[in-house]
């Protein structure tokens, strides 16, 4: 007799958080990210049926099919996932939304919708699986490709990249992280922390495209990212349901308490990075571009921002399932309106 598989705090097994088998290329960075989403949601004990998985179009946008089979999924049109997610969030504010997009889907065709999602602070995790190229259409540059990065064909990118993290901070995003598909520990901690954030949490994850952008000369390859990755801090996440107190030497750890009582512990490196300093974060991102650094970690956090759904001040119940008694005013109301119009 085999031992029963381990379960999480709500009694579900890891396989309850899995999805259909991936159809992406072997070794794709996206699959590594999918694994960390599965792991993070399992370990946090989030009820999968209360999750809605959103995406746009592209290789990255296929991935919601590969995790959380028990959650509803929505593979929308190219670049337009933010609007669909906004509608879903308004319709049912009890859903946990996780969106997966790519650099083409977010930074090119969907840049406008991305900006407005962030500006409104729609509560959701928004992961950009960033590989610098369009995979599904066979490897054209995207708007996040670095200057000087080369395609397999030798074509060099001459336009500056759009830094989605810098942009998100500029637009007031309260949770902005950058990570690497090849850094599972950091990525998982960031996903978990993002799940506790009340507002839009943007995670820009460098996720190499093994088929079209993993060669010498690419700045989004495994080799380049592995060699260049410089974590801003060592990142730990302590969920609200398991408070652990560890003594640190004073001044070596920045602790951020989240609205649900969970904590993020950022153990400092020699950089002494302050993730709550917005201007500092923008400066750091700009400088990293100039110096060709690949900085990862929690770039910016602000837990004191109202999210859009809360601002709507709707009834506690989900709007989607309100009974007629709450959504259709009585006959007297119509009659009084008619009288005013007579």
């Amino acid at each position, binding site marked *: 007799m085999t031992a029963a598989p381990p379960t999480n705090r709500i009694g579900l097994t890891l396989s309850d958080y899995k999805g259909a088998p991936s159809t992406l290329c072997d070794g794709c960075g996206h699959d590594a990210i999918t694994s960390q989403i599965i792991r993070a949601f399992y370990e946090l004990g989030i009820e999968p*049926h209360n999750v809605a998985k959103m995406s746009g179009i592209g290789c990255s946008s296929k991935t919601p099919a590969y995790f959380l089979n028990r959650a509803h999924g929505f593979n929308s049109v190219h670049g337009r996932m933010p609007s669909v997610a906004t509608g879903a969030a308004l319709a049912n504010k009890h859903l946990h939304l996780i969106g997966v997009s790519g650099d083409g889907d977010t930074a090119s065709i969907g840049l406008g919708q991305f900006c407005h999602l962030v500006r409104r602070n729609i509560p959701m995790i928004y992961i950009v699986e960033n590989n610098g190229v369009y995979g599904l259409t066979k490897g054209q540059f995207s708007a996040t490709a670095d200057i000087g990065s080369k395609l397999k064909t030798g074509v060099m990118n001459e336009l500056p990249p759009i830094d989605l993290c810098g942009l998100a901070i500029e637009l007031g995003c309260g949770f902005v992280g950058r990570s690497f598909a090849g850094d599972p520990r950091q990525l998982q901690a960031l996903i978990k922390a993002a799940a506790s954030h009340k507002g839009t949490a943007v995670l820009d994850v460098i996720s190499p495209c093994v088929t079209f952008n993993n060669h010498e000369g690419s700045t989004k390859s495994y080799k380049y990212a592995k060699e260049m990755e410089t974590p801003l801090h060592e990142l730990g996440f302590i969920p609200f349901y398991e408070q652990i107190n560890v003594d640190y030497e004073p001044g070596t750890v920045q602790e951020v308490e989240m609205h649900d009582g969970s904590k993020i512990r950022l153990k400092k490196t020699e950089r002494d990075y302050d993730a709550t300093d917005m201007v500092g974060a923008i400066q750091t991102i700009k400088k990293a571009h100039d110096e060709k650094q690949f900085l990862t970690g929690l770039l910016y956090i602000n837990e004191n921002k109202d999210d859009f759904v809360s601002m709507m001040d709707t009834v506690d119940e989900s709007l989607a399932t309100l009974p007629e008694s709450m959504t259709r005013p009585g006959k007297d109301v*119509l009659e009084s309106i008619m009288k005013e119009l007579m």
Partner: protein
Amino acid sequence: MNTLALDSKEKTGKNVVNDFSIQVATVNGSGSQSSNNVLMRSIFQMGIPVSGKNLFPSNIAGLPTWFTIRVNKNGYIARKKHIDIMIAMNPQTAIEDVKGLNPGAVCISPIELKLDAVRSDVRHYQVPFAELASKASDNMKLRKLLTNMIYVGVVADLLNIDQTQIDIAITKQFDGKAKAIDLNLNAVKIGREWARENLKKVDQYSVEPMDKTQGKIIIDGNAAAGLGCMFAGVTVVTWYPITPSSSLCESLIDYLKEHRIDKASNKATFAVIQAEDELAAVGMALGAGWAGARSMTSTSGPGISLMSEFVGFGYFTEIPTVIFDVQRVGPSTGMPTRTSQADLMSTFLLSHGDTKHICLLPGSVQECYEMATEAFQIAEMFQTPVFVMTDLDLGMNNWMSEPFKYPTTPINRGKVLTAADLEKAGKFERYADVDGDGIPYRTLPGTDHPLGAYFTRGSGHTAKATYTEKPEDYLYLMDRLAKKFETAKKHVPAPVVDTVSGAKIGIIAFGSSDFAVQESRDQLKEKGLATSYLRLRALPFTAELKQFVDAHDVVYVVEQCRDAQLRDLIRLELPESSMKFKSVLHYNGLPIDADFVTEAIIKGEGK
């Protein structure tokens, strides 16, 4: 002399009571809207049928605008082609305005414009508005506004409009603001008294009390549609401002804020979001519809074009939402403040691939209200985007109507399975045709059952909602969607048909053309031409269409577009009858009028 009779020897002629049109020419942003409303309401309150049309520029201030009031004892409320009484307040257009009048028409104008020199065959009343305005207020800015009320006073005296009704209309217009009411009433009085003392009546027009508006309301189509949405139980409203649809959502928002706050919690039972563009507005509406809300958006032609891709997605993935298209003149930016019905075909077939949509076509403010409610029922019943197509004329103009009726059908959320349903059924296939009507079952995100979830995708999908590129899966899906569309024919609003026995001529029209067609049919009848009439109220077509076409020798399709879009859709539906159709096409941006229809049909009949 302030009053000038006609040059012609002809006397004033027969008195014309309760049957004329007044046009007020002003500058937009000058505040004339309140005066025009007061004028229209006062006549309405006297029991006389009226309709009002605002012809305005796509501009905020300083450009010409015209407001037309039609007074008609028979209840005709379409645009009247000829103006009987012109109030030429705008120096920019005054000469053109007076030139456009028929001989014998009336022109009220500021004395300094000397319009009598432009047309001597028009009956002029020249009024020293500036001098009178200085008596109304010391404030220069107010004088400009009050000038508008002074012409109300002059007209009231000339037409014999009951002063009590003006008092009531002003009180209503200024919503109990005592100071504004006093100022405006005084301005009316100044105009009225001056006219009484100085003008000699030389025209034939007047009003007399009737009892034809008792219990009726005045409302514009956008507000009516907004009201319908509220009583439909809309929960998520997304929109992007665009003329002429903006006031639909704005009215709705006002209604929701007043009547849809939960009393127990003091919280909203709705969410409204002003989107960044129409792409996002429809995406939000679909996201909300998918998650189970009664969602809607409202736009006009340019927005419909932008929504195209998402609407195809909604059709293919089967998500309910309601989209209002308050049509304006296209193509492109077109003439944003002019009316049209030219979105019909592109909206019906909106998006790439094989797509076709349910479109409801209200023909009155009452139907704007009723079909708004009905659209949500149909959208959820058929799990698909549903269009409600009105136009600027219907949406932004004031119309007289019977009061609206409270919905008699309970809210029907369609085939939605709960966790308990799933437990009982033991299986769930999102896109399977279980009932044979082409309509599948859906679940909402958040359904707490292991069978509950499914994956929505705009790519090929199987009955189980998994990805597919297999020919047989795609055929199953497309054929089921076609079957669903067939089922919809039994549930969309049926046409209103008036078959006149012995009539060989049939007329088909929809939407705001109805008012002109009704009046035209009476005109044709007087000329000895009997006509039957089918007013279309929805797409897809229903069985009544074929019966109607078969029963007539010739069928005139009346529409407000250049390309005979409805006629061509009918031809596709009834190819065997395609030679029967003749088109009456009105597409200059103005609302269609009865004379236009009548003349076209008479010409078509070779009479």
